[in-house]
């Protein structure tokens, strides 16, 4: 979504609304950049040989990178980043360099007293395999 997109308002949101999908191609460079930005230099994300030695198919992306995509999807939709008050996810599958992750979100609850909206989130790779499950966000309006 671009910054030109109109932000959601509490009044306009309805249970069942689906956000536009967000697609991200994950590259080795991005994984390295995420390691730098987050401080997480675990070699399973950076060192091909080490990753193989511990039984992985090669370096894998940080689960937190995919979760950050979900945070971005929801924040862009809400309009302001600080509206995202809760975010949770289960990392169900590995994301490898070259994978394309598609992030989805659907409004499942709208609470008028707290002016909070709950969204179910998901992420799949290019083969349709779930890489994130049991994910949700709470957005405050």
């Amino acid at each position: 979504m671009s910054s030109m997109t109109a932000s959601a308002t509490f009044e306009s949101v309805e249970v069942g609304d689906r956000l536009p999908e967000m697609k991200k191609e994950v590259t080795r460079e991005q994984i390295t950049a995420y390691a730098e930005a987050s401080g997480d230099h675990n070699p399973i994300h950076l060192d091909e040989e080490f990753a193989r030695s511990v039984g992985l198919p090669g370096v894998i992306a940080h689960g937190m990178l995919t979760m950050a995509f979900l945070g971005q999807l929801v924040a862009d939709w809400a309009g302001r980043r600080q509206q995202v008050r809760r975010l949770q996810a289960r990392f169900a599958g590995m994301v490898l360099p070259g994978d394309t992750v598609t992030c989805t979100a659907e409004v499942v609850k709208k609470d008028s007293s707290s002016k909070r909206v709950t969204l179910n989130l998901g992420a799949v790779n290019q083969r349709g395999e779930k890489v994130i499950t049991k994910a949700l966000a709470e957005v405050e309006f």
Partner: protein
Amino acid sequence: VTDVRHVGRSYRTQPFLVTEESIRQFMSAIGDTAADASIAPPTFGMVYGFDAYWQLWQDPEVGLDVGHLVHGEQSFSLERPVRAGDRITTTGEITGISRRGALELVTFECQSIDQDDHPVGQATCLFIIRPA
């Protein structure tokens, strides 16, 4: 195998100064092109809290097998927005150690406070340690 007696062990970070530069670096890494770098993205808690996770991973007494550790689940909840200029201290505590089949599960709960000792947010992390 991680000993259950380590439940309750905790680690505290040094105060982490949130800067627009650190927010921008994070946004750039995740491919977020939004203009605003004054407010931290929703998963930025991993950045200011990271040293607590790092201390856990490096604790020789706990002896986690970091090479076989994967991130199973994560949640963040925020009491208030995190802004550039905030100085945030995070305390992470091991709150659970259990087994599920061949997997070992370690739950780590983090509480973050700001420069005025007011709560900023919580994070809960489930680590899974695969068999070697």
